[in-house]
């Protein structure tokens, strides 16, 4: 199964980035083989619509599930329409979060867990 994990680096040992639309990288992992591909998020600093663009990327890459910290309303609507399941509250490394996902220990989100633009500001406040 192909899952997309939001990360602050480009490999399996990078920490999970809790923001969906404004993460630094998407690490796309095959849960059977742990083979992965990392894609830099071009929309990380976009003025608006970052969540929609991220959802489009997940759909284009054929992701079946997303692992992240929080998710906004537009991204959630897009992913639901694409039939992608969303798991929130992930922490630690990409590798660890995929393991927790495989063990069924991540929480599936059925609605947005963050407001629009809450991933902006890069942690300043």
């Amino acid at each position, binding site marked *: 199964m192909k899952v997309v994990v939001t990360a602050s680096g480009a490999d399996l040992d990078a920490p999970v980035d809790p923001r969906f639309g404004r993460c630094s990288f998407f690490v796309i992992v095959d849960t059977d083989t742990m083979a992965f591909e990392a894609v830099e998020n071009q929309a990380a600093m976009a003025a608006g*619509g970052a969540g929609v663009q991220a959802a*489009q990327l997940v759909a284009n890459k054929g992701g079946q599930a997303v692992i992240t910290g929080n998710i906004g309303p537009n991204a959630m609507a897009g992913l639901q329409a*694409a039939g992608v399941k969303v798991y929130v509250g992930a922490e630690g490394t990409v590798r660890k979060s995929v393991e927790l996902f495989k063990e069924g220990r991540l929480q599936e989100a059925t609605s947005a867990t963050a407001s629009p633009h809450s991933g902006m500001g890069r942690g300043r406040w």
Partner: protein
Amino acid sequence: MILAVASGKGGTGKTLVATNMASVAGEVQLVDCDAEEPNVHLFIKPIETEGVIPVTLSLPQIDEGKCTHCGRCAEACEYHALMVLGQQVLLFEELCHGCGACSFVCPEGAISERPKEIGRVEVGKRGSLRLIQGVLHVGEPMPSPVIRKAKALIDPSLMAILDAPPGTSCPVVETVKGADFCCLVTEPTPFGLYDLTLAVGMVKKLGIKMGVVLNRADVGDQGVREYLQGEEIPLLAEIPFDPRISEVCSRGGLVVEELPHYRGLFSSILLKVKELSSGG
């Protein structure tokens, strides 16, 4: 001429300056560009209504029969308002700026446009003053098209004073661009100075001449005055911290009518603006 009154920081007295200047300007148009919460009408109280013009945005309408889900529209959308899936195109209405790029690039001609009303422009008169007011509908996120429409109603043969929204973001740029002069209202505090520097940067980028009105001038510190000297930005006027001004404003009154000794101060701002905008 078009004179924009802007500030950077909110609550510095833009509307105080704009409404009182307009009231001593003779035949003039006053445009309330703070479409998210227009308040000029509270002070001007127009008695004749000339008209109400709806403002619409053109949203894409996708003909699913023609759409091949190629994804070009979503790629072309600068605002990420479209998402294309295998069998479906999703439109995120509140992200759409109505630019029309999607229908322009669609190779199948599958995208037409439908109007969505996002606000209105109201035009009224009181004496020789014509008030043009932009009003964004509650819940709509994008005031710029309403501001554009309000400015389009300006009669270029008469003076227009624009009351800008606070800040330095898109709606303020939309208001100030194309003006002949920008009057920045600030207060002599560190907050006032910080936001003034942002506003000055914006006005410089737009290539518009500017001057500053210092409100509540006798409180705070010397920071703003020193900054203006360093930047060689003219100080147009200083309005004192006078509780009677606050009292008149909070009742929705006009300072130039109720405290007539201030008429000269507001007229002098207009005179200086006219001098500065014609010279060099």
